[in-house]
């Protein structure tokens, strides 16, 4: 037999396609693995974000209870205003960095990126493992900020100076703030290492035939998010270093030459501006929110194709919109600064770029609606999360174009309207993406499926209470309620009346949030139960087409990629999509000796 060239040879072993005959992939996870193995690191990253999300959720519930019940005591200790602000700050920081950046990007990419590329491993295992341990260290330092004498910082996740530059400006702004800055600086390094590994892996580890045009949209999302990470985390890193110099070396990057704080006047040489921090921070901060949501968007596209058994129309356009979101994402940071001291002309410029970035997002939503149109999909739990993602993404995304208008943002900025906007997208859509991914890839990790019934109850519960929690925030925001208020009741005068008038809705929100939080116990029970006692899942339980579901490559064969993902063939006259036959991306060819 003449050695066939890998790409033109005929298939040696037909992919077993249907699940029945496929070997269970779980054993790959039970083999003794090196500490640099991406499977371990994936679980490590998911574990880190689980710790962060558990702590972050408890903090948010403490906040919610304090807002409507300020005189009450939690666990025997009443919450002081600075403790409330510390709760807000740590909640936001843990969620945005350690949950929404870590889980969808580092966690899921480690879990399945090599699989989806048809590669055995990541390109740079050592860099990858280093990134993980650095991220773990960052989380420990961040959590340590709770335990220093004056407590955690109180300036919010965007840490505007001079509040963040001067320990005298408030409790928590001393060693708590130092730990916060140190943690995030370390986090920047860890994320950058992880992102470098992701980029190199996509560039170098694709199996034969897997061209860029055939990469699953998840891979495109990880790639785009990784490029953004490298670009913008370096800026955050620089900003943190400069801020630390202002704090400890008497420089004046972000503070003016003369400062009056608490009756004490200080002088510095140099005359800096707090606005410089805002520019640097939001140059990082806006792309950061897309880093959090892009992997979810990619996954949703793939899941909709998978569970409707349909192709994704305009595949190249979906790749293009992913990259456009990334590219435009670095041009819109000024929309966080319309009333923060930005030049008014720049306000209009950023209004236009922000409207522009809404278009690729809208293109994705339209694409999802087209895939779903008259599809009668299968409603397995991962699909429910994907559909829920579409819903909450639309809901949260649509307030973006309102906030993008400086004239309107001048009323809405820093009110609960903005809080509603980003919680629907980040706290809900991005988290729905994580739930979707875990439900979808659970069989790959454990060889067992999550419990369907429990999973569905958890989904509907979460969807209902998510809307019930976050929709009313639009109204309290319209009423003028500002963010970061430790107290709504008992403030005298006209202003007190305005803030107090939101209390009825606030109470509803708190009750919903508690129920939303409690519902997550269902998921924990489900994961614990299914991990050990769930129904064993076959090799390709969802009839997926992407390569992470391919069976072990038979000896003497090479895995190659044949086409884009989500190719299905209708095999019966009945249009019920469940009957469609998957044409997976992978095929096996006899290796050239």
């Amino acid at each position, binding site marked *: 037999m003449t050695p066939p060239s890998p790409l033109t040879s005929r298939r040696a072993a037909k992919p077993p396609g249907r699940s029945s005959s496929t070997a269970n992939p779980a054993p790959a996870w039970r083999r003794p693995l090196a500490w640099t193995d991406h499977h371990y690191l994936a679980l490590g990253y998911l574990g880190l974000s689980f710790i962060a999300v558990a702590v972050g959720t408890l903090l948010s519930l403490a906040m919610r209870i304090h807002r409507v*019940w300020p005189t009450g005591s939690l666990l025997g200790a009443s919450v002081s*205003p*600075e403790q409330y*602000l510390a709760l*807000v700050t740590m909640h936001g920081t843990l969620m945005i960095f350690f949950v929404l950046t870590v889980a969808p990007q580092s966690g899921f990419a480690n879990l399945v990126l090599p699989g989806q590329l048809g590669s055995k491993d990541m390109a740079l295992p050592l860099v990858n493992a280093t990134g993980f341990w650095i991220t773990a260290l960052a989380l420990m330092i961040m959590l340590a900020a709770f335990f220093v004498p004056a407590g955690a910082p109180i300036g919010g996740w965007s840490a505007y100076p*001079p*509040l963040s530059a001067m320990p005298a400006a408030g409790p928590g702004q001393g060693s708590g703030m130092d730990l916060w800055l140190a943690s995030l600086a370390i986090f920047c390094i860890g994320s950058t290492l992880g992102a470098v590994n992701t980029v190199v892996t996509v560039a170098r580890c694709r199996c034969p035939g897997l061209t860029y045009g055939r990469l699953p949209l998840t891979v495109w999302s990880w790639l785009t998010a990784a490029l953004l990470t490298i670009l913008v985390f370096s800026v955050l890193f620089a900003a943190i270093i400069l801020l630390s110099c202002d704090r400890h070396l008497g420089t004046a990057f972000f503070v003016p030459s003369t*400062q*009056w*704080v*608490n009756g004490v006047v200080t002088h510095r040489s140099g005359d800096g*501006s*707090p*606005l410089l921090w805002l520019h640097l921070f939001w140059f990082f901060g806006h792309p950061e929110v897309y880093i959090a949501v892009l992997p979810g968007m990619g996954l949703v596209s793939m899941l909709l194709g998978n569970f409707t058994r349909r192709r994704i*129309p*305009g595949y190249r356009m979906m790749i293009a919109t992913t990259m456009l979101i990334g590219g435009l994402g670095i041009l819109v940071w000024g929309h966080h600064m319309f009333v923060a001291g930005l030049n*008014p*002309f720049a*306000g*209009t410029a950023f*209004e236009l770029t922000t409207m522009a970035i809404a*278009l690729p997002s809208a*293109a994705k939503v*339209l694409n999802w609606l*087209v*895939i*779903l*149109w*008259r*599809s009668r999909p299968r409603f397995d739990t991962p699909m429910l999360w994907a*559909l829920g993602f*579409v*819903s909450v993404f*639309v809901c949260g995304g*649509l*307030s973006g*174009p309102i906030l*993008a*208008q400086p*004239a309107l943002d001048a*009323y809405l900025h820093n009110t609960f309207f903005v809080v509603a906007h980003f919680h629907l997208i980040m706290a809900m859509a991005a988290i729905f993406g994580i739930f979707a991914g875990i439900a979808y890839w659970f069989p790959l990790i454990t060889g067992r499926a999550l419990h369907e019934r429990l999973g569905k109850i958890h989904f509907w519960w979460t969807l209902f209470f998510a809307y019930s929690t976050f929709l009313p925030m639009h109204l309290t925001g*319209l*009423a*003028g309620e500002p963010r970061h208020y*430790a*107290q*709504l009741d008992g*403030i005298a005068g*006209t*202003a007190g*009346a*305005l803030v107090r008038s*939101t*209390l*009825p*809705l606030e*109470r509803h929100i708190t009750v919903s949030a508690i129920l939303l939080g409690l519902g997550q116990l269902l998921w924990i029970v489900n994961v614990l139960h299914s991990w050990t006692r769930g129904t064993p899942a076959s090799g390709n339980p969802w009839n997926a087409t992407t390569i992470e579901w391919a069976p072990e490559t038979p000896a003497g064969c090479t895995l190659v990629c044949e086409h884009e993902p989500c190719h299905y063939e209708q095999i019966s006259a009945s*249009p*019920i*999509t469940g009957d469609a036959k998957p044409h997976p991306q992978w095929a096996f060819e006899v290796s050239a000796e």
Partner: protein
Amino acid sequence: MMLLAFLGQATQARASWWMPPNASLHGTALDHQLIINLWILFGLFMLAHILLFAGILLQARQQPQPLAHSRWRFELAPLAAIAILFFSLAIWSAHLWASQRYTGTDPAAMQVEVVGMQFAWYFRYPGADAAFGITRPTLISAAEGNPLGIDTADERGRDDFVRSQLVLPAGREVNLRLRALDVIHGFAIPAMRVKQNAIPGQTFNIHFTPTVPGDYSILCTQVCGLGHAHMQAVVRILPSADFAVWLKQQKAPPAEGQP
């Protein structure tokens, strides 16, 4: 806990679900724009959900591939429509923004300086000479009645007076000169549809015309430290005759805490 919350809900009076009534000249057009926006985007939200539910519940089509042949009609045309819609909204509201912010204030406008510090707002009026005197942080002493550190060596500052309540005439444009002493504060008057951060080391000007007499809240909207939620003040809009009387009663040196 839930019971408590529901009980509280039942007994709470004066709930607010919407914007406080507008009391400024530019606010009318702005509210209009906001409400149009909310309706349009709410409509898009409903439309997307109708399509979503119809899509997954309607009888599946014979041809299982999704509308691949008519992408122009179902994806690109709607996208173009959305683009036109969003940019029209943007350009329309850019006019509103430009009219508020692109141009400076009317020279005849009333001048007041607003200074934010942890955790209070101070309002300085320039006095008869219509000019603000120099301030020095080293002279700041609320106890000695000089919370902003006005330097009396500067003649212009001698008739400046500082109040903790903002008093303005209805129907006359006002220019607020915003400063902060220590950290960034957010100056917001929801009823005037006005918001602008005050930043240490820099001065920003915003101008607007109050129209409806009354007392309105001034809030701090940028987290500034542990007293952030308490950093409030009141703006009192007086009919212009009453304002003239009030102004006549004011004289430097500043009397702390009285309107």
